[in-house]
C-alpha cells in the first residue's frame, strides 16, 4: 500500500541529497550562533541552571529545536510549493497513488529532514564546543526527538494544506510555532514562570518535548509521561494531517 509513499519519499531524499551541504550549512549556522551567543557568551552571567552550566542546559534544546524546525519548515513549504506552485501534488493524484499515501510520504520527508538536521547540529555542537553527554543517553533522547520531529512535520503538513498564501505561513510560524518552542523552557527553566502558569505550560507538547529531551540527554533520566505526551500528540496530529489533507483534496 505504501509503494507510492516510498516513491515520493525517495524523490524527496534525492533532492535532499543534491542540496545536503548548502542545506546543512544554513541549518547549522542558526543554532550554533545562538549557542555561541547565549551558551558561551552569557554563561558567565547566568551560572548554573537546574544544577547544570547554562551552555549545557540549552544545548539539547537547540538540537531539538533544529530538528523540529527543520521538520516543520520542510513539510509546510514543500507541501505548499508542490500544491500551489509546481502542481506536482496534482500530478501524483492522477496516478494510482492514494491521497493518504501522498500525505504520509510528505510527513516522512519532513520527519527525515528533522532527524538528519538535528543530528548534524548535535554533531557540530558536540565537536566544536565543550558540550558533552554520555553516549548511552542517546537512545532515550531519540524517544523524544523522533515523535517530536513527527509532530512538527504533521503540523507543517496541516499548515501547508490549509494555507494558500506564503505570507500566512510566515505569520503562523512567527505567532504560533516559534512562541511554542521558545516558551516551553528552551532557554530557561519552567520554574521561572509564575506558579499559576506552570501547570498550563506543562500541558504543551513542546514543553514535554524540550524538558524530556534535556533530561534524557544530560541526566539520562527518562520522563515517561512527557514521552507519552509527545508521542500521543504526534499520533493525533498525524491523524488530523491525513484527514485535513484528504478533505482539502476532495474539495
Amino acid at each position, binding site marked *: 500500500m505504501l509503494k507510492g509513499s516510498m516513491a515520493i519519499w*525517495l524523490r524527496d531524499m534525492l533532492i535532499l541529497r543534491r542540496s545536503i551541504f548548502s542545506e546543512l550549512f544554513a541549518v547549522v549556522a542558526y543554532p550554533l550562533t545562538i549557542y555561541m551567543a547565549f551558551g558561551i557568551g552569557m554563561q558567565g552571567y547566568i551560572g548554573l541552571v537546574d544544577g547544570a552550566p547554562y551552555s549545557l542546559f540549552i544545548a539539547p534544546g537547540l538540537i531539538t529545536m533544529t530538528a523540529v524546525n527543520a521538520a516543520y519548515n520542510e513539510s509546510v513549504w514543500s507541501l505548499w510549493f508542490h500544491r500551489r506552485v509546481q502542481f506536482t501534488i496534482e500530478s501524483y493524484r492522477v496516478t494510482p497513488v492514494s491521497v493518504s499515501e501522498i500525505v504520509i510520504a510528505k510527513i516522512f520527508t519532513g520527519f527525515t529532514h528533522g532527524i538528519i538536521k538535528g543530528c548534524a547540529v548535535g554533531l557540530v555542537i558536540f565537536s566544536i564546543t565543550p558540550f558533552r553527554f554520555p553516549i548511552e543517553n542517546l537512545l532515550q533522547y531519540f524517544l523524544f526527538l523522533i515523535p517530536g520531529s513527527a509532530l512538527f512535520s504533521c503540523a507543517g503538513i496541516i499548515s501547508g494544506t490549509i494555507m494558500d498564501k506564503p505570507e500566512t505561513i510566515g505569520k503562523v510560524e512567527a505567532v504560533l510555532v516559534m512562541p511554542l518552542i521558545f516558551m516551553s523552557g528552551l532557554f530557561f527553566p519552567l520554574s521561572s514562570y509564575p506558579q499559576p502558569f506552570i501547570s498550563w505550560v506543562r500541558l504543551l507538547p513542546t514543553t514535554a518535548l524540550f524538558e524530556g529531551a534535556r533530561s534524557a540527554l544530560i541526566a539520562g533520566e527518562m520522563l515517561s509521561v512527557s514521552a507519552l505526551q509527545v508521542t500521543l500528540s504526534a499520533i493525533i496530529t498525524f491523524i488530523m494531517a491525513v484527514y485535513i489533507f484528504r478533505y482539502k483534496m476532495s474539495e
Partner: protein
Amino acid sequence: MSTASIVTRSLTKSYSSLTALDSFNLEVDRGSIFGMLGPNGAGKTTLIRILTTLMRQSSGEASIEGFDTLLSGREIRRVIGVVSQENSLDRYLTARENLELHARLHGMERRFYKTRIDELLELMGLTGRQQDFPDTFSGGMQRRLVIARALVHKPQVLFLDEPTTGLDPQSRRTVWEYVRSLAGSMTIFLTTHYLEEAEHLCDRIAIMDHGRLITVGSIQELKDRLSGATIYEIEFSGDGATHYAALLGSMSCVMNISRMENKVTVTLECWECLSEIVTALNGAPVRRILLKERTLEDVFISLTGKKVRE
C-alpha cells in the same frame, strides 16, 4: 464488451449556486480521438477533473473503461494518462527522473520502465536532453515531456486538457504530430480552444456551453447540421461589384449579401438558387464564383452564439 471507453450519464456538478455541469451525457468510442470544445467557463475542466477522479460529481454517473469514477478511482487512475493545463513537471528532477518517478508511482518495475522511457524520450525527441532539468526547456519541449510522462505506463485513455495552449505555431504542430501518431492505440480525450486543433486531430467533437452538451458528432456531421443555406463569394473584374451587389440584393432567394471592394458574398436559401444568380449575372464581368466551405467556427458560433475564446 461495450465499445464506449468514456461514458457519462446525467453527470452534474454544482458549487452552491453555480452549476458547472448540468445533466451531462456523453459516450466516447474506444480508440478514437475525441475533442471537447467550449468557451471559457463552459465546464470543460470540471468534466475532465471528474473523469480523472480529481473531483467528485454532485450527482449522475461517469465511467472510464467500465470503472465507476466514484467507486473505482484507483483502477481508473491505472488506465489513464493525464496532461493537465498547468505545467506540473518537477523542476528539481531531470527529464528522465520525472518519467522514472511517474513510472514508480504506477508501480512499474525498473526493468520495464527503463526501456519504455528510452522509447518515449526518443519518440518525443528529448533523448539528448534527458539529463537536463525542465526549467531549461522551451515551452514546446516541456509540453512534449508532460505528454511523455502521461504515456509511461501505456494508458488506455489519454486526457489532454488544452495541450497546446501558450505554444508557438511550430511547437503546436509538433505536439499535434505526436498526438496523431497515437491515434488508434488508445482513446484520446482532449479539450481545446483551438478549432484548428480540433479539426486537425479529432474524429468526433462535442460542443458544450454553460455545463451542457450542445451537440456531438464528426466535424462533417456538425457542419452539415447547419441550416441548408449556402454561401458563395463572387469576384468581379473592373468596377461592376456595386451595381451587381444591388441587383443580387433585390432577389428573393438571396438571404444575405455583403460587398468588400470587388468581392460580393451572397448567402442563398439553398444551392438550387445558384442558377438564378448565374442568369442574373449574364454578361457581368465575373472573374470567379467560389463556394465558401462552412468552418467549425461557423458551427460553434451558430450553436453557442459566441466565438470559442470568449
